[in-house]
């Protein structure tokens, strides 16, 4: 999965809002997702396409409806790749520093 596409998709307040709406309740139609956004149908469709391309939204067909679901896995992958690395580093650096300071006392 393309990390760039995920970061880019997340770098927009409207798209983050759409993800939050799908987190509250999955299986929404585009019409439902448009209801609280000051955007045209075309505008919302464009944001949903970017989210889908990044793998953050999965579309399932149910009869004539297209239902949108949040797929949080790409965010988890970024977490595993980036956040874990940086939280482990500084934490252990600080605890190393503390033990060295305590030893030298």
């Amino acid at each position, binding site marked *: 999965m393309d990390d760039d596409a995920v970061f880019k998709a997340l770098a927009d307040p409207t798209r983050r809002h759409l993800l939050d709406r799908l987190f509250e*309740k*999955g299986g929404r139609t585009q019409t439902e997702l448009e209801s609280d956004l000051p955007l045209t149908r075309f505008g919302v469709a464009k944001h949903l396409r970017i989210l889908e391309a990044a*793998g953050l939204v999965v579309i*399932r067909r149910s009869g004539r409806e297209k239902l949108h679901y949040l*797929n*949080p*896995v790409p965010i*988890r992958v970024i977490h595993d790749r980036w956040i874990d690395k940086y939280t482990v580093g500084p934490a252990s650096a600080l605890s190393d520093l503390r033990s060295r300071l305590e030893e030298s006392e």
Partner: protein
Amino acid sequence: MSNDAMSIHPDEGREAVQVYQIFIKATPQAIWDAITRPEFTAQYFYGSRVETTAEVGTPFRYRAPDGETLWGDETVFESDPPHRLVVGWRSLYDEEAASEPASRITWEIEPQDGGFCLLTATHDHLEQSPITARNVAGAGWMMVLSGLKSVLETGSGLAA
């Protein structure tokens, strides 16, 4: 079935579906093996070992790391190796969730360009199982899929 038993509003059904998807650089067969063989699940499914022949109508179990306790004891509903596997789910590791009706997991493996596959895990039939739905959401399936990906792509912990 009587109308009373089918009293679920159709709109509620949609919330009772969770979809998790991830691209993995591996063959469909490798992903299939990672789902159906214990030496793989032990590395990404909270240490549990799967027990299955992946044949329709046979048991599909997850054995806890202690080698005795069952975390899952359901059935294979559909099997089309190495592309599609549908199994039952009931979280036996949690007393409250275990008392809810069984739900369903559908694993789908779709080959993509560049040696990748798209793996989709759909957890549905959760209408009557809100505790299970809450338990597996959040970190639950995300950890499993992200772990499965890293086992297959980095081969971490794979002995021969």
